[in-house]
């Protein structure tokens, strides 16, 4: 006789590979009997007798073969972006847009032209001299 028998929880844990291992089942008849009973129920629960029809499996194999054939004949996806880029580049070379004409100069009215010419003539010094002159002025 043993003071402490294994609980059902411990036996189930052992069944699923996470229980404590030891020689208790070898030496305790009571626990060994319960262990056998639990194993028996476990075997009954396992889906060993599941039947899947041969027709279903054959149809599945046909579908797999079809997918493999499709894969073999399909254009490689990796090449798609490369080809698109090359095509765009070719289009851009062939149909290169004409360079934009330089922006048209603003039309100046006769009055404004006359005004500008008059100012240039009447000014004794060209406007570019002004910054240089300031260098020679005495600072106040």
């Amino acid at each position, binding site marked *: 006789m043993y003071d402490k028998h294994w609980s*059902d*929880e411990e036996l*189930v*844990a052992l069944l*699923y*590979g*996470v229980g404590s291992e030891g020689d208790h089942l070898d030496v305790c008849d009571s626990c060994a009997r319960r262990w056998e009973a639990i194993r028996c129920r476990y075997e*009954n*629960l*396992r*889906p*060993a*007798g*599941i*039947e*899947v029809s041969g027709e279903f*499996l054959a149809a*599945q*194999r046909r*579908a*797999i*073969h079809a*997918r*493999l*054939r499709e*894969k*073999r004949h399909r254009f490689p996806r990796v090449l798609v972006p490369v080809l698109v880029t090359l095509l765009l580049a070719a289009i851009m070379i062939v149909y290169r847009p004409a360079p934009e004409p330089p922006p048209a100069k603003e039309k100046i009215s006769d009055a404004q032209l006359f005004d500008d010419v008059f100012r240039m003539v009447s000014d004794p010094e060209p406007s570019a001299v002004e910054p240089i002159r300031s260098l020679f002025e005495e600072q106040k």
Partner: protein
Amino acid sequence: MRAAEAVLAREETGSGVQEIDFEAWMAEEQKRIFLLCMRLLRTRDEADSATQDVFVEAYKTLEKSGGQAIQEPAKWLTRVAFNTCYDRLRSKRWLFWQRHSSDASGDSLLRIIPAVGPNQEDAAAAHDIRQRLEKALDRLSVRQRAVFILRHDEDRSIEEIAQIMDLDAGTVKAHMARAIKKLREELRDLYVR
């Protein structure tokens, strides 16, 4: 198809190197992978589509490998299946669909599970428990469910599950312990019977 698929991998066996024919390998693994997808995704259509993705992905990988051996092809395929389902379960489209069709899950797998058992009463009881288990599985997180299913349905060891899910064994154990705890709470009335 047949000519192109020819030989896509070689497997080391006790008697030497064995060439794997993709078609034969797919036929051998197809049902197991479909059922795993079914358990993870819960709907037949999604599982069908995911299974196709798994084998297309497997074919592509084998093609790229140029006939190089794949270590433990069954485990490797399980890993491809898990990743395919996991990506789907985490996708926004899936979450949206789940929110809007919460009643659709659960029973779909049970429709293809025949009632097996020594007698009618046991068969009915087992069916009842399975039904409850299916619904309880819905309440687990994706990882908890995956860990539980790989152990419960595929009888994988904790170490194998860790490899398939790219986790360490301690994390798998933690997920498993939480899954069992949640399932125990959900199925308490059956459990104490």
